[in-house]
């Protein structure tokens, strides 16, 4: 493996050192060898964030993912990663690996998205050698055992069939929205875990072939953070240098957003459920790599900061009306949002969508809430943000970035993503960009990117046909409350309950839950 230059990203390092020195005099913790002061450059194959923590975090990233699943083998990237992280190696069974991890209280996780596959784990530095020897073996000397393969294939199928279709209406709605936007022919056009049919046909040979082709030096980025010894990173790089050279996946096939047919389209997933979950969205031509991303980040945070009671949609739908648990908006993929407050790192994508997530509402309010979401979205595009909202949101985001990068594992994840997008370390990038931003920038970006004539809407509900009928006939959807509401709200409700959704009958489809991701 080629030796990389030890270049320092100044901002991060200076902050890190100042703090360390200030505390060092008081600390009773044992001091360690001075760590090497290196950070990545865009060309480096590693992202290194040494510090004095007693913990060491690994993020071993491969630039491959479900977008690289061969046609007809949807789910192969995920199954390959699962088999590595949750299967045996050539010399150890999976049970032996988990047994070895037990006294260290460690684990090794995998995550597959469209373009990225990441393996991550954190160990106490006491156990670094032992832990590293395990994960090195897991990634470099896999066992590809048939019993592990059968078990994990079944897990993947059960995830699609049971967990997603049958146990999580919210995630189901969000994932269906993506399949509405990206057709099956698009590299993004299937769920990361695959499809039930394709998974059933996968063989162990498929997994071996995928590993050979994708787990290469060209696709590899090593991420390390924490109090590891001075020569450790070099050893890791040398070990992983034994992977085949390969060629970089991200350069292989250019990705572009699909050209969606104009007009609103609605897919209603029918399943036995107590409530109604809604997701709305469309593709946007902005990622962190584009200069308008911070402007859109402000708009999305103002409109629907994830799990925050301070955002506009939440205030209107939950606080003022008590319709559900929360209502949010996104400009990046954010899976598992019902389980976590902050997004996971290493879900970098060249193509993103704008998304509105309405958490489950009582079925009788489903149509009203759909109208309310569209009403508020139209209002956002029409009116943009006020100066006060702009200032407070900008201030929030420039500080909230610290919360997003609170742990060294978070910092490592964000640094890997910054490398992917070709921007500075994330907190610096955000603070600098937000400082330069004006209200005019944000309102222009809203008009430019968030105005769409191709809204896609995914709904999960029990009475799918009844809802379809109501939408197509533009039936009024009056709402009642169990407590009196201010006139401002009831007046607005009168507008919302008749808010017209223009959609052709052919564009409102009903599908049974057991047919999705088939």
């Amino acid at each position, binding site marked *: 493996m080629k030796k990389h230059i030890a270049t320092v990203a100044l901002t991060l390092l200076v902050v890190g050192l100042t703090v360390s020195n200030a*505390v060092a005099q*008081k600390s*009773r913790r044992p001091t360690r060898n001075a760590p090497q002061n290196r950070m990545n450059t865009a060309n480096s194959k590693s992202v290194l964030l040494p510090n004095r923590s007693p913990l060491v975090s690994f993020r071993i990233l491969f630039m491959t993912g479900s977008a690289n699943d061969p046609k007809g083998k949807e789910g192969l990237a995920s199954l390959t990663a699962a088999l590595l992280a949750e299967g045996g190696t050539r010399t150890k069974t999976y049970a032996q690996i988990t047994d070895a991890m037990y006294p260290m209280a460690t684990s090794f996780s995998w995550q597959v998205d469209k373009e990225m596959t990441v393996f991550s784990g*954190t160990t106490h530095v006491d156990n670094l050698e032992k832990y590293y020897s395990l994960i090195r073996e897991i990634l470099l000397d896999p066992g590809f055992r048939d019993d592990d393969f059968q078990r994990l294939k079944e897990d993947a199928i059960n995830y699609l069939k049971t967990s997603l279709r049958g146990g999580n209406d919210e995630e189901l709605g969000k994932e269906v929205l993506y399949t509405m936007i990206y057709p099956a022919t698009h590299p993004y056009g299937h769920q990361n875990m695959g499809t039930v049919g394709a998974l059933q046909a996968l063989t162990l040979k498929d997994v071996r072939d995928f590993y050979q082709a994708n787990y290469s030096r060209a696709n590899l980025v090593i991420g390390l953070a924490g109090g590891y010894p001075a020569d450790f990173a070099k050893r890791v790089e040398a070990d992983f240098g034994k992977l085949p050279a390969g060629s970089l996946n991200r350069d292989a096939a250019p990705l572009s957003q699909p050209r969606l047919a104009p007009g609103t389209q609605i897919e209603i997933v029918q399943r036995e459920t107590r409530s109604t979950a809604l997701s709305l969205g469309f593709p946007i031509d902005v990622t962190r790599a584009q200069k308008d991303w911070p402007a859109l980040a402000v708009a999305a945070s103002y409109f629907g900061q994830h799990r925050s009671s301070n955002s506009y949609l939440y205030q209107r739908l939950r606080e003022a009306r008590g319709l559900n648990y929360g209502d949010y908006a996104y400009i990046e993929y954010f899976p*598992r949002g019902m389980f976590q407050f902050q997004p996971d790192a290493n879900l970098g994508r060249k193509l993103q969508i704008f998304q509105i997530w309405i958490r489950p509402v009582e079925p009788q309010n489903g149509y009203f809430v759909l109208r309310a979401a569209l009403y508020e979205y139209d209002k956002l595009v029409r009116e943009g943000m006020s100066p006060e909202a702009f200032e*407070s949101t900008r201030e929030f985001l420039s*500080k909230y970035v610290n919360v997003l990068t609170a742990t060294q594992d978070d910092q490592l994840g964000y640094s890997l993503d910054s490398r992917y997008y070709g921007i500075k370390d994330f907190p610096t990038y955000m603070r600098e960009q937000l400082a330069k931003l004006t209200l005019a920038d944000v309102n222009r970006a809203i008009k430019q990117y968030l105005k769409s004539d191709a809204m896609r809407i995914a709904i999960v509900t029990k009475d799918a046909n009844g809802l379809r009928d109501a939408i197509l006939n533009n039936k009024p959807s009056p709402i009642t409350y169990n407590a009196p509401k201010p006139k401002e709200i009831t007046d607005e409700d009168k507008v919302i309950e008749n808010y017209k959704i223009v959609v052709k009958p052919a564009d409102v489809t009903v599908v049974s839950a057991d047919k999705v991701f088939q």
Partner: protein
Amino acid sequence: MKLLFVVSLILCVPLLALGQTARKAFAYDYTVDDLPNGLRLITIPTDYPNLVALYIVVQTGSRNEIEKGKSGYAHLFEHLMFRGSEHYTGQQRDQILKKAGADANAYTDDDRTVYHEVFSKDDLDRILELEADRFQSLKYDSAGYKTETRAVLGEFNKNSSDPEEKALEVLRATAYKQHTYAHTTMGFIEDIEDMPNQFDYSWEFYRRYYRPEYTTIVVVGDVNHEAVLSSVKKHFGRWQRGNYAPDIPSEPEQNEPREAHVDWPSDTLPVLYVAFRGPAYSDEEKDPPALDLLSAIAFGENSDLYQKLVLEEQKLDSLSPIYQDHRDPELFVVDAKLKDVKDLDYVKQQILDTYKRYTKELVPQAKLDSTRSRMRYSFALSMNSSEAIAGVLASYIGLRRTPDTINKLYSVYDSITPEDIRKAAAKYFVDKHRTIVTLTTKKEVAK
């Protein structure tokens, strides 16, 4: 999709024995300041830049709800504290927190109520001022109060759709006859329904417990101790000490095994709780840490019983021990979710046999060592940010008001022998101190 390893237990790796005893489990430097009014401040500067985690721990939980008909008020108060105060409305409060980039929330437990925020270091003084205002000058009117009691009822209703929640409620009510642990943090439903009529009592609760002598402020992060202390003195210095001490009833001796059953109105997997009376938290006595280690060894994911009932025979959907640190004697519970109701007696017997087994048999030293190692590393790995450190600390502050209890506790863990575990099991797992609760689908509903 992200999946974690499920780990299983085998041989010990005794390499830790030396290193462990030398290093403190809670290795951070901290300062404890006691204000004249009884308020305690614990400050922990860390290497994590820019952020501050502020945890305000009130040593009041459902344990303090001693009057008949008044359960659930600690939790109700956790809600009321967000409705505004003398100088800030709820909305103004939201705006200040937004400008600080803050993540803010609160929770209630049996022994404590915890209010927590994480935000940028520059906003510490402002947020301490905001917190001081609600702790000293909370404001809500009768209408606002009633609205919030409905929200609490809504939360009870949401939880009540969970059969395990219901089984736990019945377990507590069956096992405790006098002590306030008889009710869950939510409270008894009849008390929750009566809350709208108890506006005046709610203020009584606030006057009793929202006092400096019950409260510990924990500040962790990119902070300077002097500055924190000065802000806390400025904003909390005038807070008046109270004079109320609750008389928590002690639970009388249990002289017979108890059982209770719940008929669940819809389809559910059968739930089984097998519990024995255990000891209260202690950082000096051997029994609580010995039972804690045993809970993982006997009933955790690496236990023989788990391997047998969950993985090999596949009779169980899940099996886990519940034995949490409490100020007063707490139950040691094994929680099993079955796949089929026909296995209920078999599984119950297997669990009881396992309890009995460890009253006679010694745990292998190797198993004890690897479990102790796992516990210690798991604790170290959990403290990976200022917020995580404060969060971990909050539960110990609720018990003993000082971080020192953690290191005392871990040195007791280090001293536990297989014989200590056997002795603790023999002392606590006696039939007359047993309570079993089952929950199954009502016969008419069962398919």
